[in-house]
């Protein structure tokens, strides 16, 4: 993103309503552009005036202070035990390695549409089988406090598929891994989000590029709890839903035959 484009988005960015991908790009741009960063800060300061101008309607309940302190302590705990972070990173690497091993061969068939489609289906099944069988491994590395949810992602239009895994820990510093296949031709970046049953959603991250088979594997450390978040949605650059699926606690399944 250049300065001109960033300046066009900055007012909406400051007002908190810039579309997701625009906001991501502005954030990246202002990290490296001092002039736009100053403009962003000034506009955010102006926007915050509207927040301060709101009439107070009663004070927060007294009990809320204790809840806030406890909530911060809960998430602050892992920082006091850096070895836990290292162990979680190890788990993510392990999961990502297994997924890549299952899926990364798809690009070999680039250009041969039918074989590619069949391969994409197979690799998705292989990935799904791999991730649902990871439970024991992850549990072994992560201990009893680690929980793994996984599931297949299905295409709305019938083209493409994928898998997703969440790794939940007691420290609420959770991770998510997504594998997609057969999405060649879809407009990128793809945006991955996950929501709970009440409809609360977390924007997990974006997949900026696909390989020639329309595949990609991405892992994110979210620094927030994914407990209760099970519905995964992948949207293309036009915000159209391309893949969707629901995660569940693991039960082992057999790998598909090659």
């Amino acid at each position, binding site marked *: 993103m250049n300065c001109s484009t960033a300046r*066009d988005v*900055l*007012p*909406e960015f*400051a*007002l*908190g*309503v*810039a*579309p997701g991908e625009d906001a991501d790009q502005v954030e990246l741009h202002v990290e490296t552009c001092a002039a736009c*960063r100053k403009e962003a*800060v*000034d*506009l*955010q*300061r*102006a*926007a*915050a*005036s*509207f*927040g*301060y*101008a*709101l*009439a*107070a*309607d*009663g*004070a*927060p*309940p007294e009990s*809320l*202070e204790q*809840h*806030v*302190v406890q*909530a*911060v*302590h809960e*998430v*602050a*705990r892992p*920082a*006091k035990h850096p070895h836990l972070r290292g162990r979680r990173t190890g788990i993510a690497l392990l999961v990502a390695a297994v997924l890549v091993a299952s899926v990364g061969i798809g690009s070999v068939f680039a250009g041969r549409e039918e074989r590619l489609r069949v391969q994409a289906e197979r690799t998705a099944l292989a990935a799904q089988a791999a991730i649902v069988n990871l439970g024991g491994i992850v549990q072994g590395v992560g201990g009893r406090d680690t929980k793994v949810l996984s599931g297949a992602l299905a295409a709305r239009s019938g083209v493409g598929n994928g898998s997703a895994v969440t790794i939940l820990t007691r420290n609420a510093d959770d991770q998510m891994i997504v594998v997609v296949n057969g999405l060649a031709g879809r407009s990128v970046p793809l945006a991955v989000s996950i929501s709970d049953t009440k*409809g*609360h*959603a977390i924007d997990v991250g974006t997949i900026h590029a696909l390989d020639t088979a329309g595949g990609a594997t991405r892992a994110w450390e979210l*620094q*927030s709890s994914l407990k209760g978040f099970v519905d995964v949605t992948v949207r293309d650059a036009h915000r159209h839903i391309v893949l969707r699926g629901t995660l569940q606690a693991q039960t082992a399944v057999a790998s598909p035959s090659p």
Partner: protein
Amino acid sequence: MEGLLAGDDAAIRALYARFARPVYTMGLRLLGSREAAEELTQDVFVTAWRKAARFDPHRGRLSTWLMTIAHNQAVDRLRRETGVTRPKLVLVDEMPESPQSVDEDLLLERDAALRAIASLSDAERRLVLRTYFRGMTAREISEDDGIPLGTVKTRLRSALIKVRLANQKELS
């Protein structure tokens, strides 16, 4: 902020004492229920802890940073919860102040904010209110009002710059 980063009890409580009320008020006004406002307040302070290492006092004020976090989270939630009856938004000059004591710094901040907003025309004020409090994007306003997207963006920028200049006058 260092205390907050360390999860220090006193630092969290000090930050809470200073900012809980405006954050809670924002939650109440944007999301419409005490329960949602409490959830938002909790989420904002947890997010502040997570992002504390990235806060740079040379780039902006702590109050702006925290209110931006609060507002972004409230708008995200507002936009997700379509169908929710959105509360009527009342600025402080349209509503009698609560008799409960309010932090003096907060009152000063609010007075300065109201003076800055008063520099806007009614049309500019309504335009910003629709984005800031209702979470409407420039495109949505453009479609609703039947005016070009570029015009909406230009007007939003112009309104924010007016408020910014008024803020700067307050400071000087």
